[in-house]
């Protein structure tokens, strides 16, 4: 499903590699926490999977396709198989909840019929069925993140990448978001979530990949955040 082989990423401005000879494999349908302190390489890991950046050396494979050799015009196709959620939601503030979700389908040329059908479905799934016509500014943080998840999931991606999705939310709201991500994972979607939230990691007991200074310090199935916390 997803495979990194001896991946090293050097940014021009930095002398230390952001990822240093990282090799790992993630199977279809897995739920993986990516943990580590700031600057440990979590974001670089996710960026490489999206082909927002290319590794300096090593190969990244997603869905059987080697990203290193992928041409620029094939990248949109890759990204249509992946959904992204961020700490800051990244919603369009002048569009309603339903329009935000529909936007993701419109710009990849989905027919209007399909959009009319699937947008209410996904909004119901994330628990926002009554708020389709609200603007993001009128929603709570947790609700806004649900919109973002709906947008990431509406095209039924194979992989959902979440970069600190609960970073701006209180523990109770975070729990709701995690239940939603678990539910998405149960549909067969691989979920990779970068996080600092040890409560969540400890309570869910899923696979944990810990990065430290660009190398994998720990890769544990049913892991916890770390000792001494």
């Amino acid at each position, binding site marked *: 499903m997803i495979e990194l082989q001896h991946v090293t990423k050097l940014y021009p401005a930095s002398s230390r590699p952001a990822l240093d000879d990282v090799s790992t494999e993630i199977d279809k349908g897995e739920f993986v926490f990516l943990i580590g302190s700031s600057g440990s390489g979590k974001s670089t890991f996710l960026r490489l999977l*999206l082909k927002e950046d290319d590794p300096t050396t090593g190969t990244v494979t997603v869905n059987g396709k080697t990203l290193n050799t992928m041409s*620029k*015009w094939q*990248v*949109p*196709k*890759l*990204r*249509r*198989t*992946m959904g*992204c959620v961020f700490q800051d939601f*990244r919603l*369009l*503030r002048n569009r309603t909840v339903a329009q935000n979700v529909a*936007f*993701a389908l*419109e*710009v*990849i*040329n989905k027919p209007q019929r399909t959009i009319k059908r699937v947008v209410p479905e996904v909004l119901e799934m994330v628990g926002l069925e009554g708020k389709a016509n609200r603007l993001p500014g009128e929603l709570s943080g947790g609700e806004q993140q649900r919109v973002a998840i709906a*947008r990431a999931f509406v*095209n039924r991606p194979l992989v959902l990448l979440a970069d600190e999705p609960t970073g701006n939310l209180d523990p109770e709201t975070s729990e709701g978001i995690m239940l939603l991500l678990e539910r998405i994972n149960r549909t067969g979607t691989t979920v990779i979530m970068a996080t600092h939230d040890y409560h969540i990691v400890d309570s869910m007991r899923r696979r944990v990949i810990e990065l430290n200074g660009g190398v994998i310090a720990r890769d544990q199935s049913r892991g916890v955040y770390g000792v001494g916390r």
Partner: protein
Amino acid sequence: MRVNFVLSEVATGLRRNLTMTVAMILTTAISLGLMGTGLLIAGMISDMKEIYYDKVQVSIFLADDVTDEQRAAIEQQLADSSEVASYLYESKDEAYERFQQQFSQQPELVQNTPPDALPESFRVELVNPERYEVIAAEFPNGQNGVDQVRDEGDFLDRLFSLLNGARNATIAVAVVQALAALLLISNTIQLAAFNRRNETNIMRLVGASRWYTQLPFILEAALAGLIGALLAVGGLVLTKVLFVDKTLAGPIKAGIIPPVDWGAIAFISPIIAGAGVGLAAIAAYVTLRLYVRL
């Protein structure tokens, strides 16, 4: 491609950067208008060459005290010369008549010129216009009733080099203005891309194609280019109606200056429009490739 989506993006983009859009349209319009003027002058020059070069090549002006014998001798010499293709005699009266016609727009000048001030002359067309020197040598100035031999071609050459200079200057200014327009388009597109960075970031992440993301920006520039071109064509039409057709009516009627006809404007309008739309779109595309991550 969802046409509505793209068009609404274009409209939003143009409205959001209204001042930049107006500046972009105006500089484009001025540049294209000057380019059109340059093309019109070029057309006019070639029309004028046809009018003038065909007529007269060498004028032999006769002295005031020329005798009938001298005049007849000159005429005989012209008739016998193998260098002369044809010649025409113009009396003092005829010269004055032509003068009145040419300067009908300047009545003071006509009034202050006595009818006998203009010399009689032979207008000579040469077999080979380059061989002016030979004719000049045959009729030395100030002898045998000849006052002066003048190579009209030489005068026309100077006139046309002046007109060519005017055309080149116009086109040079048009090019500089076009450069300003292109830089302004580039800036506007960067600003538009910055304003819409949230939308384009999301489009990139959900896998919208490059074209889908870039097209609204390119169309935005092309539309501004088109509006600029329309303004430029409007400016040319106004120049023709208000300046050329009115102020220059006299010389045009007298056949000194060729008229600017609608056909010429109709001919250059699509060139202007194509240049406006094409250059704007290319500038936008290059800007997106170089400066904007989409």
